[in-house]
């Protein structure tokens, strides 16, 4: 791929406006796959750039109201065509995120989106309020992504995010406190109609949706006959997911016309262009970012280099 395809409906090299915010680019990293956006800067070298070059945003690891220590290991398992994870939302909690992570991100100048998870609408509202209060003036804080779809936590998680009414209430609760940030709802593909969830998010005031979180997946260790993950089933991500993510993004765009940030199996500029072809306004790189910290930066550079 050396030239920008003629069929593109917009120029994906340009900045992106979502709600009231301008993002500097359309290649983002996905939540949970690049930490808090504070690691890896040292992986760059003079003349070879940094993993953050050209990124439209880093979506930080999902934080919950309280810190969580996550699930017991093993938490990761490579399958023949993808990856299973069961991290269990290990995170530092909202307070440390606001007090330590956000100031560090502001200092580094990386554009970022904070990913939040909670178990009730009021809790989402409360998290949004606390973040807004702590970091009201943060210049590089572009948005919030509500993770309504994590498959690896016992209380809530996916089930919670499958109910359109609940999605709408969660978004509305957060929206109230975040007038000045782009607000995205991250949706699960483990559902019948993802477009209905997207429409509900829009009713709640979201500026767009992120699709998709992981599919539910599993593997078995043939030596023991037991599931490889202690919690049996986990989140399935990586290359195998791409056709599913593309179909879900297409479904949302076709049925609702909402801005969609596409994610699932993206590793190359060609993959990203497929999402732009179906109407995604930006894309996120998850699993590929884990095996190569420069994955997203490389795609952003390849995109910028298209004639």
């Amino acid at each position, binding site marked *: 791929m050396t030239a920008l395809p003629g069929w593109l409906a917009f120029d994906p090299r340009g900045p992106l406006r979502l709600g009231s915010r301008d993002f500097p680019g359309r290649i983002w990293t996905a939540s*949970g*796959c*690049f*930490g808090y956006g504070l*690691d*890896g800067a*040292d*992986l760059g*070298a003079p003349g070879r750039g940094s993993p953050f070059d050209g990124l439209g945003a880093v979506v930080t*690891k999902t934080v919950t109201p309280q810190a969580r*220590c*996550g699930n*017991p*290991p*093993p*938490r*990761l*398992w*490579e*399958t*023949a*065509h*993808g*990856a299973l*994870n069961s*991290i269990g939302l*290990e995170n530092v909690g909202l307070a440390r995120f606001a007090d330590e992570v956000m100031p560090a991100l502001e200092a580094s100048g990386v554009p970022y989106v904070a990913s939040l998870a909670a178990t009730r609408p009021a809790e989402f509202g409360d998290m949004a309020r606390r973040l807004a209060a702590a970091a009201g003036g943060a210049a590089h804080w572009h948005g919030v992504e509500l993770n309504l779809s994590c498959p690896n936590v016992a209380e809530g998680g996916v089930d919670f995010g499958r109910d359109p009414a609940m999605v709408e209430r969660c978004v509305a609760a957060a929206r109230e406190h975040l007038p000045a940030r782009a607000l995205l709802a991250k949706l699960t593909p483990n559902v019948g109609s993802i477009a209905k969830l997207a429409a509900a998010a829009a009713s709640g005031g979201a500026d767009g949706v992120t699709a998709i979180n992981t599919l539910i997946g599993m593997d078995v*260790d043939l030596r023991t006959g037991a599931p490889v993950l*202690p919690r049996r089933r986990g989140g399935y991500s*990586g*290359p195998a997911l791409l056709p599913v993510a593309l179909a879900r993004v297409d479904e949302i765009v076709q049925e609702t016309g909402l801005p969609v940030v596409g994610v699932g199996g993206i*590793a190359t500029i060609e993959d990203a262009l497929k999402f732009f072809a179906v109407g995604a306004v930006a894309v996120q790189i998850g*699993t590929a*970012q*884990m*095996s*190569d*910290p*420069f994955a997203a930066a490389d795609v952003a550079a390849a995109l910028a280099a298209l004639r």
Partner: protein
Amino acid sequence: MNMPAAATAPPARRLHGAIAAEVPVSSSMRRLELELEEAVPFQPGQFCMLNLAGEPALVFGRPFSLLAAEGRRLSLLYKVVGRGTARLRDAGVGAPVTCLAPLGRPFPAPDPRPHLLLAGGVGLPPLLAWAERWGRPSDLCCAGGRDGDDLPWGLLGSSWRVSVDRPGALPAGRQAFDGNVVELARSLLPASAPERVVLACGPLPLLRAAATLAAERGWDCLVSVEERMGCGYGVCRGCVVPRASDGGYATACKDGPVFEARGLDWTRFGGGGGT
């Protein structure tokens, strides 16, 4: 506690390169040499995440301990155990790779106490590197193998003591203890032996046995753990081991792979790494 200071680690880089040499060094172990775009200074115990370029079937990089670096050439030892290592063996000289290195907290530089090195399976490379860099005659180096053919004798200086699970042919002039490597160490170090710092690397049962030995004797013990890794650079929280202090987890790739044995909760260990 009287722990040796951790050696300071140089920063990690993503480096492009190619396979420069790939040769068997025992019936099961192979030496891989990579020619990279830059030299990789490292401390023994550190590792790399290795990706074969253009292998979309391999989702994650593969962690391998660093054995030696000469100029821009980086060497490691590996065993073929699954599809990634099989592809590595079959890729051939010249195959392009990308490599994140050096990663992780290394074994500490030596302090005045003598050391006991306990290496099993693919746990050998980092302790070979340590012995090469810092070993003294007072250190006791023990390596365990499945049988005589399994061990890379050409790399094991004559000071290394060896144990094997199954007796079998040994190279001329070499001997092997019949049992596991911690049993070998026990046979050489009576309960009255003076204090040593234990450095252990290998499968979980070896690490457990090493930790038990050290605990019994009140010695410091550092173990290098094998956990399944996603990123290798601390961002995915996938490679965790249970921390003793607070019921939480530490990452093998960034907080480790080298840990103080007493800092880990051995009752909550998963089955992620070696068996």
